[in-house]
């Protein structure tokens, strides 16, 4: 059951070679045994998982099963799950049991998938190392002294360590692609609007997008088929038909035009990562793709723009956590102001507090034009860069991160250097485009991620391009020792 693709698991379930109960039990046991080393789960929903597996087995027995019926999945603890603690990695929501299911959770449940539990994450999805969690940092399975990346570090580590075959994540500035790269697995952040945000606790609404981690592009395609689609409860959801992503996985890459953004290959890029990308380019050339240098001149502006827009939206999105209706409330508040101040100071961690303050400042009277409006203008320029680029290329390729995983604690005192680890991923969120990270090698025992960026709603093409590479290479089949 270990290292089997989702397609293989699905066939085995349909053929009754294994039961969902066995499969679920298998992963629950791995979690129990191995997760103490990683801390990738905040909540393991053992009983619910076994109940869901039983239901799935009944459906399989009746021949009423779909392709994902009985397949286990781990959910990032940012998605609201009915009757289950949904903490968002924060003390603020440590006592919060969601009264409803997020739309994507509903979709997975209806498809018969089995939720194993809720994965660890940077508090409110703010962070690039998963060290900002109220529940402690997550360790990278490739070396437990290193970070798994963030903010979806728990999901990435869980999939890399084969504690779950697939897991959800969210990506506001790289929170799927960066941990996928650092943990040596495949991750996809679809186009903004492709995945419903209803029930996904908001960090920065105009940038947040749900997505997936798995071992391969093919696995991602199987599960994305269920996760993607229009939701009338989300006004920013795109009412565009979802293709079957598995149909085009094996399309030929002959004549495919791949763009290499000059700005992604500066001196700041780790040498080994640069070399790994060059090697990957050769693989694609062999498959018939052509490479073209492109310019994304505003890339360097995307980090400052992002760190205005995202905190601005977060300062407003997180205002609802006030200790009045749910979540953490301080002991014996003196008055209303005391209730707000202490509940919020006690409930939020340092990074969240920092971003709320930055965002509040950026939106303040007298600063709004200089910060928020300016950042929105940059955002348009960044999007224009991509629009121009996609006139001459079909897909953009480059590194996911400038360097591999760093040591726990290495960057916690230096937020700017932490923010810079998202330099290649953030622009994609500002432009609302789909992006993926797939494994492309190793440096000093740590995985290297390669990023693929597509035009809006070109997820099928991205998965096709990633799958073609994975048929030629075996980086995605490597597993960390001990897991």
């Amino acid at each position: 059951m270990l290292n089997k693709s989702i397609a293989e698991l699905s066939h085995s379930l349909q053929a009754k070679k294994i039961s969902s109960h066995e499969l679920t039990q298998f992963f629950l046991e791995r979690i129990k045994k191995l997760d103490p080393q990683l801390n990738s789960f905040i909540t393991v929903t053992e009983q619910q998982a076994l109940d869901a597996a039983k239901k799935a087995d009944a459906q399989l027995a009746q021949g009423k099963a779909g392709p994902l019926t009985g397949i286990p999945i781990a959910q990032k603890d940012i998605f609201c799950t009915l009757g289950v603690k949904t903490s968002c990695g924060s003390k603020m929501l440590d006592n919060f049991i969601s009264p409803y299911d997020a739309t994507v959770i509903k979709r997975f449940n209806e498809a018969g998938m089995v939720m194993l539990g809720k994965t660890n994450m940077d508090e409110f999805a703010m962070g690039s190392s998963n060290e900002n969690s109220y529940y402690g940092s997550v360790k990278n399975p490739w070396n437990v002294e290193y970070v798994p990346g963030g903010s979806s570090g728990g999901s990435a580590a869980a999939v890399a360590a084969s504690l779950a075959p697939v897991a959800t994540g969210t990506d506001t500035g790289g929170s799927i692609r960066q941990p996928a790269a650092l943990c040596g697995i495949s991750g996809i952040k679809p186009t903004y609007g492709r995945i419903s945000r209803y029930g996904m606790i908001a960090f920065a609404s105009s940038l947040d997008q749900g997505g997936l981690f798995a071992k391969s592009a093919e696995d991602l395609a199987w599960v994305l088929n269920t996760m993607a689609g229009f939701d009338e409860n989300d006004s920013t959801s795109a009412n565009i038909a979802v293709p079957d992503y598995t149909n085009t996985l094996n399309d030929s890459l002959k004549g495919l035009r791949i763009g290499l953004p000059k700005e992604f290959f500066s001196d700041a890029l780790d040498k080994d990562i640069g070399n790994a990308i060059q090697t990957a380019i050769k693989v694609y050339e062999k498959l018939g793709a052509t490479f073209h240098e492109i310019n994304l001149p505003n890339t360097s502006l995307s980090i400052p723009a992002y760190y205005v827009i995202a905190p601005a939206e977060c300062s407003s999105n997180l205002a609802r956590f006030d200790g009045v209706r749910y979540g953490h409330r301080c002991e014996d508040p003196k008055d209303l102001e005391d209730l707000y101040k202490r509940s919020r100071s006690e409930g939020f961690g340092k990074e969240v507090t920092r971003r709320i303050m930055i965002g509040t400042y950026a939106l303040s009277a007298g600063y709004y034009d200089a910060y928020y409006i300016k950042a929105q203008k940059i955002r348009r320029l960044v999007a224009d860069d991509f629009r121009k680029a996609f006139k001459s290329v079909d897909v953009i390729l480059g590194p996911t991160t400038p360097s591999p995983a760093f040591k726990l604690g290495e960057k916690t005192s230096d937020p700017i250097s932490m923010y810079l680890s998202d330099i290649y991923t953030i622009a994609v969120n500002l432009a609302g485009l789909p992006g993926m990270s797939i494994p492309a090698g190793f440096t000093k025992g740590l995985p290297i991620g390669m990023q693929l960026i597509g035009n809006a709603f070109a997820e099928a093409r991205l998965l096709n391009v990633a799958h073609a590479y994975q048929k030629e290479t075996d980086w995605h089949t490597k597993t960390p020792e001990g897991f």
Partner: protein
Amino acid sequence: MEWEIVIGLEVHAQLSTQSKIFSGASTAFGAEPNTQACAIDLGFPGVLPVLNAEVVNMAIKLGLGINAEIAKRSVFARKNYFYPDLPKGYQISQFELPVVGKGYLDILLDDGTTKRIGITRAHLEEDAGKSLHEDFNGMSGIDLNRAGTPLLEIVSEPDMRSAKEAIAYLKTLHSLVRYLGICDGNMQEGSFRCDANVSLRRKGDSKFGTRTELKNINSFRFVERAIMYEVERQMAILEDGGKINQETRLYDSAKNETRPMRSKEEANDYRYFPDPDLLPLLITEEQIAKVRSELPELPQQKHQRFKEVYGLSAYDATVLVSSRAMADYFETAVAASGNQAKLTANWVTGELSAALNKSDMEITSSPVSAEELGKLVLRIADNTISGKIAKTIFESLWNKEGDVDHIIEKQGLKQVTDSSAIEALIEKILAANPQQVADYRSGKDKLFGFFVGQAMKESGGKLNPKQLNDLLKEKLTSGS
């Protein structure tokens, strides 16, 4: 010193939709606390707003009703502030780009002239919940039933120069939103709320003085009182050479005073920015044309028609069109009265309105139907009864004693118009009062009223008054 009063009004009209502006929860008034608030209204983690399409049509209706430009593209913005009855920590409103732009309303002044009051804008927003400050074990309670109720905030220009003008504007707007069917106008329940911006300046000055904003004014009467109080207060300060603080003041109707809530310095920085959860609101020409084609006749058009078609005075027309129900009642009654427009108007605005007021009833639940009132007017016009007798019959109609003709028949109230019968009665009276006849004939003209009174008394008030007058004069004169 002569001071000029400058008033601008901000009206919050609660739109009469079935469900809330961004969620499917009900908007019905008066339910148990927190029973009409769903996860979206409660601002739970992860929830998202979806705009109720009906509020857009209602905003378009208002825009057309105030002759305003309707924005093809408007934007929802977040107004950020902390308050326990504001679940998300921000209110979804519109800021830079409202759905309705500049428009105006013409109001009728006491002297019969009209004045045009500019409307700056109208925008859509959600209402907050309510804080209940009675003691819940030392804490305040929060009722979020009202949270997310759709509001249209209608902001006027500072064009009003007296409390009377402010009331006239408010009543005109109140009538308009009810005609349009977009707001029930119930001020007690808070469906139609008003804040007033009041300032004073020296007569002749072109610059406005510092203004205060008066809140919590929940009836027409209080609008006038609050403004009057505030004008007096500001005038006293200015006359003493003092300065007005720009501040928000609360009107206390029990004490009839305004007192400060918060000053400009303490004012919130609302940190408005476009709500990333909602797309810009796009309205097409076709959508506007469709709403326009479905608009009812509006008060101003009706006012014009009532004057032209029925020949009514501006005053009568204003009173009759003040509510759609009263205008409809009037038109039904006129049709039944054989087109006695003026007389019908008198009865609707006079006897009927007084009776309704006295019993605190709406015209829609009047015990006297429009058809019956029209019939009553018809019977006055065709001389079946006199105006005086009609009042008695009206009372019987009010008490549901039957229809007009039935009551006339049963109570024998039919007017006597037979000249010979009237003459016979006059002869009888003159014969019984020889002294008075002699006095009259020797010049005591005032005694004419005495004979009329005697005749009416004798006949039970049923004689046609004009015939009685003519014949009586004839008899008294001819006999001399």
